């Protein structure tokens, strides 16, 4: 199946796949980078964003409303989760943090199953984006094209927040040296809460934007979580540019490997991660501050 048109098509598809992974991974990585908490509920938050959006879509029939609702709902979930639960685990060992976020993921998934059942739910893209666009080398779903653009804008916004605002400066400083930031008299508590909210919001936004592509089930976040971790590890834990780079690399690996032998697409993804860990244990753009 290695033909020139197919290669170009897969390259492009890898970009689309990677953009989405980059967005989800950036949420995961800034939370870890700032708070030091590896949030195993991140996949479940991606799923929650999808379902919150779906519920809004059912009620309103509008995709835009669904996206706004899915995103804001997860901002609230993130803020609450940080304030009520995660906050009490900053000082505790990593294992406890893993367990509590893993437990929350189960609670989220089963609650959604209880409310919406295991049957898959479909969110239709807006009518203007529902068709197919000829790209010359291939026919590509218009909505997926739009997602590349939507995600690019979202990543840009995240970038501006992180690199052009005072909050972003604190967050980045926190990733480099959290204790020093604390010593400088900055209210780390509130920053942490906001960062957790932003991370959750990124996952929720990705969840609802992705919903028309995949159709929702309560498990939709599980497979994504695994891939997101691979992305974060490849890109460098705690690094926002790393998450973007890692996402694109992962998307291309999955896409291009499946051109040669689809059975090995995910194997190659993990092989790439192993390789990166051997050569650059901190990941491609890993920050030096954190262990």
């Amino acid at each position, binding site marked *: 199946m290695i033909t020139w048109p*197919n290669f170009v098509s897969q390259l492009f598809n890898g970009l689309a796949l990677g953009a989405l992974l980059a967005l989800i991974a950036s949420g995961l990585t800034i939370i870890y980078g700032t708070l030091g908490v590896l949030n195993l509920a991140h996949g479940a938050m991606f799923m929650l964003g999808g379902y919150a959006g779906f519920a809004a879509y059912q009620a309103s029939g509008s995709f835009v409303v669904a996206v706004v609702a899915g995103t804001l709902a997860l901002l609230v979930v993130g803020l609450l989760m940080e304030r009520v639960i995660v906050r009490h685990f900053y000082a505790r060992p990593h294992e406890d943090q893993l367990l509590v976020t893993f437990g929350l993921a189960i609670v989220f998934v089963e609650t959604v199953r209880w409310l919406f059942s295991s049957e898959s739910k479909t969110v239709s893209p807006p009518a203007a984006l529902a068709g197919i666009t000829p790209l010359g080398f291939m*026919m590509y779903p218009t909505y997926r094209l739009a997602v590349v653009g939507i995600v690019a804008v979202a990543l840009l916004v995240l970038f501006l927040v992180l690199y052009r605002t005072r909050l972003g400066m604190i967050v980045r400083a926190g990733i480099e040296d959290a204790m020093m930031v604390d010593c400088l008299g900055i209210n780390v508590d509130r920053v942490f809460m906001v960062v957790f909210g932003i991370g959750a919001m990124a996952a929720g936004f990705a969840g609802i934007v992705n919903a028309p592509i995949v159709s929702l089930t309560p498990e939709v976040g599980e*497979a994504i979580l695994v891939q997101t971790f691979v992305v974060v590890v490849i890109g460098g834990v705690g690094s926002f540019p790393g998450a973007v780079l890692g996402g694109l690399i992962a998307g291309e690996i999955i896409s291009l490997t499946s051109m040669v032998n*689809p059975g090995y697409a995910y194997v190659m993804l993990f092989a790439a991660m192993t390789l990166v860990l051997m050569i650059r244990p901190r990941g491609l753009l890993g920050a030096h501050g954190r262990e």
Partner: protein
Amino acid sequence: MGDHTSEARRAGRRQFLRTGVLLAGGLALPGLTRRVAAEDKPPIGTYPAGIQGNSVTIGIAVPRTGTYAEQGEDELKGWQLAVEHINGGHPLIREISPKTKKGVLGKELKVVVADSAAKPNDAVQAQQRFITEDKVILMTGSTSSAVAVAMNKLAQREKVLYVTGISGSNDTTGKDCVRYGFRQNFYGETAANAIGPVLLKAYGKGKKAAFMTPDYTYGHTVTKSVNDYLTKNGGWQMVTNQVSPLGAPDYSSYLTNIANSDAEILVNVNWGHDAVLSVQQAKQFGIIPRMKLVIPYQIPFLAKDVTAELTEGVYAATDFWWTLQDKYPLAKMFVEAFEKKYGYKPEWGAENAYMSFALWAEAVENAGTFYPPDVIKSYEAGRKLNSMVGEVYFRKEDHQLVRPVVIVRGKTPKQMRNKEDFWEVTEVVPGGPLMQKPDAFGCKLGDYT
């Protein structure tokens, strides 16, 4: 004198006791001989520990979460209805198992249920627990052949009978068959041989096909059987085979390959939510309707989940579809009873589940005992059995039920007479000629004890 009297009295009492014992023995005799016969059988597996009380327990490990959850729930309802019917002596059960009165050999059936998530490990662990704690005398469950094959091995090792849930791999009654496992439903080879001629007639010879295959025993054997048939008999060519893991989150890269191939037919072997997702995405990529979609191994609820627009004109092979009630009285009884209890028309997962318990009850009643080797021999006797799709029988060499395969074609939304009228039955293909020779897939059943 006094001594004499007491001696005589004692003798008299002894005589009386002796008579009494004999009498009691005589009265108890029928029961006694039966008990002796039962105890003649050496303990094996959960026998006789599992049949001590007034009830016997069946262990069910079925996916209630994950990719196959929706189909698992449908199956579970089929088993639950069968248990209710067996315990109550429902007329439908007595059509299939004429000796059934209430329960099985007079014992009430109970079930214990676990979520397998379609993972072999989870299923085996749950059933192992059911064997130890509940002394289950029958196990079932699987909506994945990977689970069915693992359960087969557990059944043979623990000497506890296992009837498969949904399992489409050739291996389940092929190279991974066991003495303690039985399968009711159709599978890769019979699906291929049933749908193959239909496809050649509908689409002609020399076509190019793209396959989508889930990466485990079910996917590989179904794809092989279907492709073998089409290449040998119709000169078709497989231009690409897109193998994906169970539960893949996205099919775009696989579909990109297919879109860039010159395939005319898309044979989608994916199952459960994977099938839903890959069909929806094939539509998004414009592959449907550019290519003709074929579903060689029908997925319950597929048409409902992807909508009839995507399944219209699509050929699929299946175990059962509810409109068969127009042709088979037993199917009608089943569909009515099921719909009354659950509020929707049963899919083939429920039918398969129901039949597998009904046929087990039939085998046990005919054996007259729960002793597993005797039940197995009862299955292997090759009796003609009633089913919802006419007469069927178990093949003794590989424990596969010889049963028809149903060919359906998707209706257009306009043709549908009600919201569940997705498929039109075009053919009910007799099972015998569809099957490979019993040893063709390397089946060696193993020991009874």
